[in-house]
């Protein structure tokens, strides 16, 4: 049995289903992220684990104990809020000490434990300051220390890094993971930022319209997105509509606007409408006649470590990302060939959905 288990959790607000039939098992010590666009139900799910929202249906078990109806103040979970939610009228020390006081930890024992928590987040010199005297990153660490000092069985993080600027966010990501490894606390994080979810999670749970659509390790979600939505939401992707023309036990051939492309997906039937999904970095630029397709460089963007090309060809505009290896890039307007290996092509059954939702995060 898993350490934290959500079973068929549903939350309805009147006719609206915010979270529908969510089941999730988190192992002890694991770092799991709930990833999805805003309004997908990830925060509601977290609040149900925390005890601030009561599920309409389903059970939540923690270490074998049913906590579905337990009050938030009896669950003993550590929570870091998006706004940090520090007590503004208390010093850093008193903020961290508050939870120990509530648990009736003797006074003599509180001080060393608060100091230990503050040194874990590198804030020992700031114990006497007030939250308003700290920077965003420091407040974030106080919130983390306050949540961890009570030695919670589960740590819940609600968009913990979204209020930090880009550079600090990246540094805090790694630090968060390092601290989590050190204390070994089972952690559930809610985020809409896929880079954040991917870089620090053991597993990522993708949510869409109140439901879980995929639970997997980060690289598997990136390489094998189970739905077209995920392939769009997670990273950049080229989506190509086509029809299956031949199918064998080990693969198939798909016709894309008259061009036949081999794929390695089994179980397709001839005549079926499919959507092919190819990541931009899996495409290679070749000499004009050297690849599966030929096209022309419509635009190119220098991203520092990479080049992003827009290639116009018979299949419309495709995105291609190549590492910046120091060589001279293809010129704008130059004819190029495009090549890829059949093993990198993912096949989604069914027609392509309408143009991507504007609200989706596109993180390069």
């Amino acid at each position, binding site marked *: 049995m898993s350490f934290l288990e959500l079973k068929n959790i549903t939350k309805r607000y009147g006719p609206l289903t915010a979270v529908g039939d969510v089941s999730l098992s988190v192992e002890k010590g694991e770092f799991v992220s709930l990833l999805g666009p805003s309004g997908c139900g990830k925060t509601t799910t977290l609040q149900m684990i925390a*005890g601030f929202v009561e599920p309409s249906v389903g059970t939540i078990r923690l270490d074998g104990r049913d906590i579905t109806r337990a009050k*938030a*103040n009896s669950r003993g*979970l550590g*929570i870091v809020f998006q706004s940090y939610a520090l*007590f503004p009228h208390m010093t850093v020390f008193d903020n961290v000490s*508050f939870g120990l006081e509530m648990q009736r930890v003797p006074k003599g024992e509180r001080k060393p434990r608060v100091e230990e928590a503050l040194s874990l987040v590198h804030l020992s010199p700031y114990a006497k300051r007030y939250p308003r005297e700290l920077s965003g990153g420091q407040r974030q660490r106080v919130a983390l220390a306050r949540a961890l000092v*009570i030695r919670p069985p589960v740590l819940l993080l609600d968009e913990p890094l979204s209020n930090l600027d880009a550079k600090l966010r990246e540094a805090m990501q790694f630090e968060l993971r390092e601290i989590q490894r050190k204390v070994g606390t089972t952690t559930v994080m809610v985020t809409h930022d896929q880079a954040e979810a991917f870089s620090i999670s053991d597993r990522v749970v993708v949510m869409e319209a109140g439901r879980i659509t995929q639970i997997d390790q980060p690289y598997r979600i990136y390489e094998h997105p189970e739905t077209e939505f995920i392939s769009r939401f997670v990273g950049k992707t080229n989506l190509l509509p086509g029809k299956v023309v031949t199918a064998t036990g080990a693969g198939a051939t798909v016709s894309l606007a008259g061009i036949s492309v081999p794929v390695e997906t089994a179980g397709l039937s001839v005549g079926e409408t499919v959507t092919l999904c190819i990541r931009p970095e899996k495409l290679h630029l070749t000499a004009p006649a050297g690849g599966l397709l030929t096209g022309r460089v419509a635009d190119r963007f220098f991203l520092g470590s990479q080049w992003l090309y827009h290639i116009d060809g018979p299949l419309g505009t495709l995105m291609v990302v190549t590492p910046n290896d120091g060589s001279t890039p293809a010129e704008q307007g130059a004819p190029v060939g495009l090549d890829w290996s059949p093993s990198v092509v993912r096949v989604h059954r069914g027609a392509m959905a309408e143009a991507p939702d504007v609200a989706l995060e596109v993180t390069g």
Partner: protein
Amino acid sequence: MTRNGPVALFFHALVVIFMLAPLVIVCLVAFTPENTLSLPTRGFSLRWFQAVFHHPDFVQSFWNSLWLAVLSATLAVALAVPASLAITRWEFPGRGFLNALFLSPLIIPHLVLGVAMLRLFAVVGAAGSFGWLVAAHMVIVTPYVMRLLIAAISGFDRSVEQAAFSLGASEATVFRRVTLPMILPGVTGGWLIAFINSFDELTMSIFITSPSTVTLPVRMYMYATESIDPMMAAVSALIIGITAVAVLLLDRVYGLDRILVGQH
């Protein structure tokens, strides 16, 4: 921020002078050694202040007013804290009605309230009771406290309370250790505004005070209808002084611009 031009500055100065001049003059006259309200005076004297402090009726009325203001402000805060928490945070039937009810005394003329209270006191047989006078003042000052508290609570980040809950605090502890300290500027500001309003109140109090509960403004009014001497100026100066101290305190703990302009 745009600077004011010379014409605007002149106009602002005129307005300020127009508003402050009577107060300044009353304060100056209070120090006159003469027997009439006269300015300029020939010297400087505290005789009229002495007269106030040796006038038993005024001393009694001063204490009446002080106790009345302290009690009605404190009770109004005690009532307004739970009321404004309920109104800002929960949806319940009658919420809009309750909100309007608490704020309605603001739009009822004190004269009307005075007549109504007089009638009410006669019916319940409470004429002359200090307790009922306090209750009547509470009606007048509670809306001010409510307004300030509702503003303080609306800008409150609920997740701070959730954080305290998640750390194991009970509901009572969260209120005592987190909610109340965080809305404390609103509570103190509300209390001071209530105090000032009650201490100054004349129109309604004229109707409902009895000889033993006459408040300072009422006592002044009664005295002034019979004779005008510099003692009036001395009492006025004292009231101006007390009010000024209260307003300064209010500015320190809450910020006057937040009350008057409604900024948070």
